[in-house]
């Protein structure tokens, strides 16, 4: 009797599953996107949302993925609070998301949240905090991919190239003193500390080391501190364009008359177009480092399609990187021939060498973050000249320009 | 002497509220204090009760120097006061209001109960014992305030304008209660009052303050005829209308 019951149960289940998958063919493939739509990161979040909307629209117009329509479900993670990412994550997974894609969504718990499930999770958080768990437990967190390199990369990269720049512009460093100003956030603290450590090994001395909160409006006291310490390098590690613009504006006013014999380096922030818009002329001469986004023929074409749909220009790396992540996942699914055969899709992602809109991606198989080399996804050095971001290195991107002395260095 | 102040002065910034006030209150008497508004009467009470220390001078209660003691310490020694503005705990019953006073003694709960009941009976408040204080009329509120003071087990009670706002009949009966406390309870009373006829009537001795200084000390009836007191406090004649007289 009991065996019969079990048999019926099994038959029923199989039938249900069969029916389910037949039904599933009509059901759209669900893409879950936890992105910051309100709060301080809303301007980036808006770009992520638009990128995914464009991607889904284009893919659907081309007949869908494996013949099925794609559908996008957004979740707002606001100011990236842990409890928000948790709630949003559960909602998206509960809704049946087949993949989770975001530009960035968190400061360290996202890996734990999405690592609980099987579908692939692609994020651009660019933080050691997010990749550490993956490196430590590849078995468990194998579905978590960071399609950017880690934060420390900026620090290592700065140490490698910053001190050689003077020569290129005919400037000799007057001393071996460094000022570090970093916002109280792992993405910026990690590389700044890494840089300090590496530079110290070369004999440089950190004379100003300030951690500042977000929303810093009045930089006067910090600028006075820089003035009295008189460093040769001022490095600024931040990710909010508003704060950074206020800094450079007050900086250039502060040193307009007496000057400061120092180079100014900024991590990432000027890549957000708002920065130049707000900072205007005062950012002239700033050297900054960002990812390889926003240029090249493929990007120009993408930009046209973007503008056709949204009537505004894509703004910042997440307009683009989020699309690259989407394409990566699409390629992996198409190669696997199925959406919910997650292990296969993940296998394919790991083997990816993806030609992105601007640079190429290859995952570091130890922690599933992207390798940062001149060949794959290099960090690109810029200088702001005549109100524009001019690419300086790696050599393959150089726009023929040479570093110029910033206006606050007086001869 | 149960209470003695020696050359007590108090200044608030530039304002000299009290200047060299000497006061002696004998055990068992009713002592009256009067004087113009702003003469320093309430300040004198505050200084004695320890609300703030005097700028100079010495206060002795029951042979003990209390000049520097805090209000609650003085209260424990047996000297308590009421305030001009009736202060009770509005939502508490009469019983609980009085018990709050008794609790200052620091003895065990049973003794409190007895003491509270005793005090209520003594002042004829048994009927009101469960009424919330906010429902009481002004007269009963004043009695409750006094009961709360008595329940601390005090020996000297200071009353600050207890008759203000009472009707003539209420005044008469309130004075009866004060006499009862004094005679049958053995409690010394120090009382500030403007209703002078009543104060003269009840006091054994009186003191008049003006501008922080003592201008009269002694026999109550003498107050009416003292020229200085008439000048600054009473005004000429019986019923007269001040400035147009």
């Amino acid at each position, binding site marked *: 009797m009991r065996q019969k019951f079990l048999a019926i149960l099994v038959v029923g289940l199989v039938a249900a599953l069969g029916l389910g998958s037949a039904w599933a063919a009509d059901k759209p493939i669900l893409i879950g996107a936890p992105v910051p739509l309100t709060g301080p990161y809303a301007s980036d979040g808006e770009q992520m949302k638009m990128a995914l909307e464009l991607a889904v629209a284009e893919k659907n117009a081309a007949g869908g993925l494996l013949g099925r329509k794609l559908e996008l479900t957004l979740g707002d993670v606001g100011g990236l609070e842990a409890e928000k990412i948790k709630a949003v994550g559960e909602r998206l997974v509960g809704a049946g998301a087949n993949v989770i894609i975001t530009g960035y969504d968190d400061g360290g718990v996202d890996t734990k949240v999405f690592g609980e499930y099987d579908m692939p999770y692609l994020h651009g958080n660019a933080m050691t905090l997010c990749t550490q768990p993956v490196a430590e437990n590849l078995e468990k967190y194998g579905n978590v991919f960071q399609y950017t390199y880690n934060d420390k990369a900026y620090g290592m990269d700065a140490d490698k190239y910053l001190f050689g720049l003077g020569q290129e512009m005919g400037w000799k460093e007057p001393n071996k003193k460094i000022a570090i100003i970093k916002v109280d956030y792992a993405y910026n603290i990690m590389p700044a500390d890494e840089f300090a450590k590496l530079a110290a090994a070369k004999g440089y001395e950190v004379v100003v080391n300030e951690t500042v909160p977000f929303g810093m409006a009045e930089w006067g006291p910090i600028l006075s501190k820089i003035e009295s310490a008189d460093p040769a390098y001022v490095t600024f590690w931040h990710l909010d364009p508003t704060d950074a613009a206020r800094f450079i504006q007050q900086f250039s006013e502060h040193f307009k008359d007496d000057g400061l014999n120092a180079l100014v380096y900024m991590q990432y922030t000027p890549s957000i177009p708002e920065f130049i818009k707000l900072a205007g002329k005062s950012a002239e001469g700033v050297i900054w480092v960002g990812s390889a986004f926003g240029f090249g023929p493929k990007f120009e074409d993408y930009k046209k399609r973007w503008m056709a749909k949204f009537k505004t220009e894509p703004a910042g790396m997440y307009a683009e990187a989020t699309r690259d992540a989407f394409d990566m996942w699409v390629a992996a699914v198409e190669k696997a021939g199925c959406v919910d055969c997650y292990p296969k899709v993940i296998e394919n992602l790991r083997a990816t060498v993806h030609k992105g809109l601007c640079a190429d991606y290859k995952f570091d198989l130890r922690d599933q973050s992207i390798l940062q080399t001149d060949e794959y996804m290099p960090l690109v050095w810029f200088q702001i000249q005549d109100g524009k971001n001019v690419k300086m290195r790696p050599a393959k991107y150089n726009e023929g320009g040479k570093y110029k002395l910033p206006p606050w260095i007086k001869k | 002497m149960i209470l003695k102040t020696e050359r007590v002065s108090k200044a608030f910034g530039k304002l000299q509220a009290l200047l060299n006030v000497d006061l002696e209150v004998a055990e068992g008497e009713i002592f009256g204090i*009067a*004087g*113009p*508004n*702003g003469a320093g009467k309430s300040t004198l009470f505050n200084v004695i009760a320890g609300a703030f220390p005097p700028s100079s001078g010495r206060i002795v209660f029951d042979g003990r120097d209390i000049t520097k003691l805090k209000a609650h310490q003085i209260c424990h020694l047996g000297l308590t006061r009421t305030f*001009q503005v009736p202060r009770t705990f509005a939502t508490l019953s009469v019983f609980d209001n009085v018990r709050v006073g008794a609790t200052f003694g620091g003895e065990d709960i049973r003794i409190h109960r007895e003491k509270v009941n005793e005090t209520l009976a003594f002042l004829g408040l048994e009927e009101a014992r469960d009424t919330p204080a906010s429902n009481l*009329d*002004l*007269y009963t509120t004043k009695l409750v305030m006094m009961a709360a003071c008595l329940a601390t087990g005090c020996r000297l009670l200071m009353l600050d*304008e207890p008759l*203000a*706002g*009472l*009707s*003539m*009949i*209420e005044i008469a009966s309130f004075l009866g209660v004060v006499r009862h406390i004094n005679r049958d309870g053995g409690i010394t009373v120090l009382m500030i009052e*403007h*209703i*002078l006829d009543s104060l003269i009537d009840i006091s054994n001795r009186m003191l008049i303050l003006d501008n922080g200084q003592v201008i009269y000390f002694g026999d109550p009836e003498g107050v009416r005829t003292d020229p200085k007191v008439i000048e*600054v*406090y*009473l*005004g000429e004649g019986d*019923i*007269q*209308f*001040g*400035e*147009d*007289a």
Partner: protein
Amino acid sequence: MTTGPSASPALQLEGVDSYYGDLQILRQAAFHINEGEVVALFGPNGHGKSTLLKAISGIHPPRAGSIRFMGTEISKAPSDKIVEMGLAYIPEARNLFNEMTVVENLRLGAYNRRARGKMDRNLKLVFELFPRLAERRDQTASTLSGGESRMLAVGRGLMSDARLLLIDEPSIGLSPLMKKTVFGAVRRIKKETDISILIVEQEVDYPLALADRIYLLKKGQVIMERSVGEISKAEIEKAYF
């Protein structure tokens, strides 16, 4: 200037009921004040004297009944309109503006539109009545003594260009000399202006010497009306029971 009591009532109350929550305070209260008349209202504590003044002045409007001031029904009017009509309430609690100077307090007394134009004239009158206030014109109200702040409250009431003053317990907490001063001022108002006055008091002596008529309020009802001279202090005391 003095016109003496006249026949037409400045204020007339009929059947006034007032409550605090469910508790009825006034029961069918009725009385009147003639123009130019000084009326004293006595009564035991807690029987509704202050409530009556609050009902008239619109601070705590009555639930039923009619209150006519100079012929106009005001029982439902808001307090600011009542003030503007010339009815000034001087509460026992004084309700002065403690952080303002004496003169600022007085000027605010003339807040209503009708009084603003006559502010300077009335200010002069107040300072004449209370020279003490003129001396302290730039002192803040919180630094005044009890008697002085009582004068200020009365003065502020006069500033509203009042035709009727309601004064609640002016003698409370005042020294004998101060009482003389305050009641002296009330008598001068009586003699030199035609403002009608209603005084609520515990202390009987002064009002008896001042008033034209007296009322007794007990348990929320006006139970007795007498002309002064018809009644002695002892009789009033007796009537309390």
